[in-house]
């Protein structure tokens, strides 16, 4: 069963930028997490997103579309990236979500809708 781990971080608590103190440890934690996912054979995909300021939303309204600056929903937390993992149960997915080195933030765990007989 595939699950999407949607990572949201609190922009009020910025993560270290390149050159900042602690940046290397911060990145090390993410690399280690990626490594653990790969080693466990559960990693399907995952990417980090550019900051929310770079987001553009294409809104559909019954066929008409408008393009606006910003994310589709303004939240206290901003989407920062995702992992797509393939594990047995929600408990396994939650266990991986607990280990995401996000610092302060939230991970939404969403099962991927099965399509076809073998997904």
């Amino acid at each position: 069963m595939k699950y999407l781990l949607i990572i949201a971080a609190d922009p009020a608590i910025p993560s270290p930028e390149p050159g900042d103190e602690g940046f290397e440890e911060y990145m090390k934690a993410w690399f280690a997490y990626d490594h653990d996912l790969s080693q466990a054979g559960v990693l399907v995909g995952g990417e980090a997103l550019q900051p929310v300021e770079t987001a553009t939303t294409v809104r559909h309204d019954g066929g008409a579309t408008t393009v606006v600056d910003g994310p589709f929903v303004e939240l206290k937390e901003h989407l920062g990236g995702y992992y797509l993992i393939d594990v047995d149960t929600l408990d396994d997915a939650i266990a991986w979500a607990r280990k995401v080195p996000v610092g302060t933030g939230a991970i939404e765990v969403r099962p991927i809708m099965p399509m076809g007989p073998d997904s």
Partner: protein
Amino acid sequence: MAREEGGRLLALLVDRVGGLDRAQDCLQEAYARAPSAWARAGVPDDPTAWVYTVARNAGIDAVRREASSARRLAAQARILDAGVAAVPGPGEHADEGDPRIVEHAEVGDERLRLMLLCCHPALARDAQVALTLRLAGGLTTAEIAAAYLVPEATVAQRIVRAKRKIRAARIPLTIPADLTERSVALATVLGMVFNEGYLAHTAAAGTLTRAELADQAIRLTATAADALPMEPELGGLLALELFHRSREAARTDADGVLVRLAEQDRSRWDRTLVSRGFAALSLALAQRRLGPWQVQALIAAEHTRGRTDWARIVRHYDLLRSMTPGPVVELNRAVAVSEADGPEAGLAVVDGITGLEDYHLFHAARGHLLARTSRASEAAAAWRRAAALTHNPSEAAFVAARVADAEAYEGPPRP
């Protein structure tokens, strides 16, 4: 092992592992493992039970392994449904003389896993309550709706949504890794069910009496506490429930009016339930991991003694509020303070509590303490506030009598 034993085991396994073919495979596997395992560790006391357990575990493992196939989903659904079907309905009891003794142990295990599943943190609290009562307690949707005075469709929808999430998100029917966290959630849900049955206002109507709901909570708590003796909060909750339930006969008078603890006829308390409560509490305390349910049970236990040591109860409340701070704990502590140090001291604490303006017992406690400090008109006003907020019939009758007392003491209203 006799062939008919094998047939019986197969019948038991079919439901458990989700299919005849798999049940046969698992049974074969268990028979194949027996010679080397028994050579190593000796022949078990009950070889049939050993074979069954090994086969059942193999079946569950097989179900788990088929993680990525659509058949897997159906199999898990069957296990869930088999677990539901295996739960005895209300009033049915497991027959002690039933020769299928292995099956009983298994039902206990399934039931525990069902309860833990029902309290999965990925489910909303009201869904946890409804699912626990429906799946683990075996109540009907109509009975749950009646107990909580909500439309049956609401309960049905909660259950359908929760089951859909269990299947779609694949919440597993297994003993979780975070067992302590989950058993705390289970204790919270069972405690809520018990309170609803025993203390709250809504369960008076409908097909399910308050006592039945409370007894259902006690049965489920006892099952969970037996199965998880290393989780002392379940035992603490069980003890608390038993202590409360032991007072049932003395809690209301012949007219159904609430009788306060201090005025209850203690000879009418059920001593058997009290001693079961102490047994559960001592097992829990032996784990040496104190929690709020155990502390509440200690407080309730104190009331079962001939003479209540109120200073000790105040100390227990000090401990409880350090674990679960909140205005209701403060109020209960204030009542204990008033018994230990006098009504003025208690009233001072009560008047320092905020956030309980709409809680009938807050005004009842104030009314009681104001009356004891001879402030009759303030007491009458407090009891009237309490009366306006009270819904449970026996409590309402009690509060109405206090309003009448206070008003009589106050004298006739002056123009």
